[in-house]
């Protein structure tokens, strides 16, 4: 029987080793020690996905605040006086908790590490996930901590958080390590991973000698292909691409075969229940066995309606008849991944398109129009046309590209209208040097997380703006900020969050290194909102939504 400590020691060794080859070796050596298929699936999933596989759609749903408060009570320390400054110093809640557990007398005396097995820890994750409310979750956290070493606690919390283990070893590396253990071509295993959507499951199949069953199955979702923002990639040959409108809808994978039709969202969850009208419509067409990639949009009077209309439908698990009538949806197809017992993902886009067009004709499935591209200059024209049709922008797709799961390469590029705007609050201001010497001219702006379970503070920085204001505005701003200063760090001052600024930006980008998890491209002032109370500032959830809808 394999222990959690063995997992933790392997993970910790990976963290302390440089170079992906050496890290892969450690992971492979560890996986080799595991002979039980359940255990192997579990530990591979922990390393690649977290406590639960992404495919399962499950998570422990326990917030950072709950964990921190539970730890403070466990350790009998004051959150504000002890935990918060310690966490600020390490920058990591899990590291802070694990060190305090090891070092504080209260942490040592309340724990009796008893070398839990992988199975036992997995059941703790299950318990925490199914527990209701903070108190119950806290009880399970305590039960886990009582039986663990500090280092076990550190990685227990990171696996639980379903985020990165912060060991410089991602899911792709984990799959490479599994490939090494079973002496299988990494590419073979990688495609099995993509088809099944679970590194843990693939590892199990390898151990059981069943890898050949890691095949595509209808009604099991495939990982989606993703697009890169066009600004991030250099394009040499525009004529290698075709253009489609980018719909302001919900990405969807449709699996169908005759009377059986199912829909999956981008996170591989089933969304069939939310769209019974679409299911019924597709069932009526008696499709051959197919997997289509496309977009769900609200369409009335032949017009694609804005995303806000679709949102009315997205929330409803069992939509009422009235809702279905007011907001009817359509599936607009733009790719085909599987057709009549044949997986098409390794075929070039233009070949897949030919199959899709034929299918669309026979079964009257709405199709995204495709246009050839001759040069960069065409983009502006197509972009304006797409916006004119109420769509979000453009998708550029390479004609010779295969369907690459989860990749953000050059095969698909998205062109969107400049980002948007947010109401933010000034947290820090920095005095510039040179012409603006002494004047506070760079501003760190924050969005609200006061009602966000994941955070203990009220605001998180989202970007830094140093332009877009007039000289008059800058003077007014300086006058207003001076009395709000609470702390100084060299040329930078921290201010009370009192002043709201509406900012414009080009795009929202994911950035794991920031507290918010996102950064803005080119944020700049649009207006200082003296008129608005700061409680009306945008929240991080707004930012996340804008990003996911983008």
């Amino acid at each position: 029987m394999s222990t959690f400590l063995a997992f933790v020691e392997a993970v910790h060794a990976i963290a302390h080793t440089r170079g992906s080859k050496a890290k892969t070796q450690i992971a492979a050596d560890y996986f080799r020690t595991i002979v039980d298929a359940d255990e192997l699936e579990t530990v591979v999933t922990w390393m690649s996905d977290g406590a639960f596989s992404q495919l399962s759609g499950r998570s422990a749903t326990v917030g950072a605040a709950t964990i921190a408060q539970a730890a403070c009570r466990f350790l009998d320390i004051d959150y504000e006086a002890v935990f918060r400054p310690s966490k600020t110093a390490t920058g990591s809640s899990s590291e802070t908790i694990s060190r305090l557990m090891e070092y504080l007398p209260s942490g040592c005396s309340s724990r009796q590490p008893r070398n839990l097995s992988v199975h036992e820890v997995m059941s703790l994750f299950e318990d925490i996930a199914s527990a209701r409310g903070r108190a119950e979750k806290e009880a399970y956290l305590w039960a886990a901590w009582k039986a663990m070493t500090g280092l076990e606690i550190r990685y227990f919390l990171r696996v639980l958080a379903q985020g990165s283990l912060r060991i410089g070893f991602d899911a792709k590396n984990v799959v490479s390590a599994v490939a090494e253990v079973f002496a299988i071509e990494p590419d073979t295993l990688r495609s099995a991973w993509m088809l099944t959507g679970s590194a843990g499951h693939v590892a199990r199949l390898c151990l059981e000698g069943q890898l050949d069953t890691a095949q595509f199955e209808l009604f099991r979702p495939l990982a989606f292909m993703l697009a890169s923002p066009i600004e991030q990639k250099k394009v040499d040959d525009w004529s290698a691409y075709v253009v489609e409108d980018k719909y302001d809808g919900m990405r969807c994978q449709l699996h169908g075969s005759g009377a059986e039709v199912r829909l999956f969202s981008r996170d591989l969850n089933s969304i069939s229940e939310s769209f019974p009208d679409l299911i019924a419509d597709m069932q009526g067409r008696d499709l051959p066995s197919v997997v289509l990639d496309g977009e769900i949009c609200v369409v009335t009077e032949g017009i694609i309606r804005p995303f806000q209309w679709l949102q009315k439908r997205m929330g409803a698990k069992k939509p009422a008849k009235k809702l279905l009538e007011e907001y009817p949806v359509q599936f607009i197809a733009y790719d085909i991944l599987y057709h009549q017992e044949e997986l098409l993902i390794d075929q070039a886009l233009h070949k897949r398109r030919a199959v899709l067009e034929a299918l669309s004709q026979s079964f009257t499935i709405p199709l995204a129009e495709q246009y050839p591209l001759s040069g960069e200059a065409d983009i502006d024209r197509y972009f304006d046309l797409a916006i004119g049709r109420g769509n979000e922008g453009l998708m550029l797709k390479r004609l010779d590209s295969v369907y690459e799961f989860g990749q953000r390469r050059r095969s698909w590029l998205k062109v969107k209208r400049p980002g948007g705007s947010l109401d933010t609050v000034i947290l820090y201001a920095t005095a510039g040097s040179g012409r603006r010497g002494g004047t506070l001219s760079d501003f760190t702006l924050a969005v609200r997380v006061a009602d966000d379970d994941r955070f203990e503070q009220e605001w998180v920085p989202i970007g830094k703006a140093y332009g877009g204001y007039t000289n008059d505005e800058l003077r007014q701003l300086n006058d207003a900020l001076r009395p709000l200063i609470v702390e100084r760090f060299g040329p930078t001052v921290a201010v009370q969050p009192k002043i709201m600024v509406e900012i414009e930006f080009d795009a929202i980008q994911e950035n794991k290194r920031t507290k918010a998890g996102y950064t803005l491209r080119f944020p700049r002032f649009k207006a200082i909102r003296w008129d608005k109370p700061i409680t009306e500032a945008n929240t991080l959830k707004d930012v996340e939504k804008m990003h996911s809808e983008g």
Partner: protein
Amino acid sequence: MHLPALDIAFDVNAAVASHCFVTHAHADHVPRDRRMKVYATPNTAALMRIRGFVGDIQELPFFEVLELPNARVSFYPAGHILGSAMVYVESDEGTLLYTGDCRRPAAPTSEGFVSPDKVDVLITEATFGLPIYRWASHEELFDQIRRFAMDALNAKETPVFYAYNLGKAQEILHALAPTGIRAQIHGGGYPLCQVYTDAGIDLGRYEKYNKNTLAGAALIAPLSAEDQPMVTKIPKARHAYVSGWASNESRRQQLNVDALIPLSDHIDFYKLIDWVTHLRPKRTYITHSPTPEVVCHFLHKAGLDAVPMSQEFG
């Protein structure tokens, strides 16, 4: 730190009092005015002179009492680096101990750590004044240093230790001494080694950095050399960051090093609390800490009076 009533001062930049004491030879404790008159221990005096201090240094050996008009002053070993001292002051107002930088248990390359039995007022550093800081033993950390160097050399790579030129560098040399590993040290640290060997501390086979003979040796250099040719031009190197701050995992990404070795020349949180609760001063002032309130919080829980050092003290 200035005590106007007694006309004495510690680790100040200019002659603000008639009698100024330097606790140790790190740059942030030595006066910027390189010509003023100060008191220091003989080893601190020697290190200061090598580092370019040209003022009048009155050497005051440990435990020797200096009789001043308003006070009696003596040095106690601080355990931080060679020569490092705490200043003990007896006056009509009672007794006071100023720690400067200190380490308990003492760095093996220092003269030890000796505390007076009783003080009324303690002014202590708390650089690592958070309960996330607890140091492993010197044996354990020295072992890490030796193993890192041997592993790298066995793999035909150059072990590079990032460490301060004064104090930490000599501690690493001392750790490596029993292994017989040859070590080269940055030009800023090399001349200081003589003071250590004169004090009878074994620094092993050390020599001044020379790129032509570096192969097969370990290199000790300050972190500022990270992007300098002496480090970047080494064909194959492994890097270790040796500092109390290395206890924070985040330093790994920030510095891009192979190993973090949390060997500190400062007292850790637990030894500090333990020492102060046994010493039981009437009042403790916390200084040199980004989070003095945390130390005060724990001392309050132990029933002691403690406050962050403020500007108006004295």
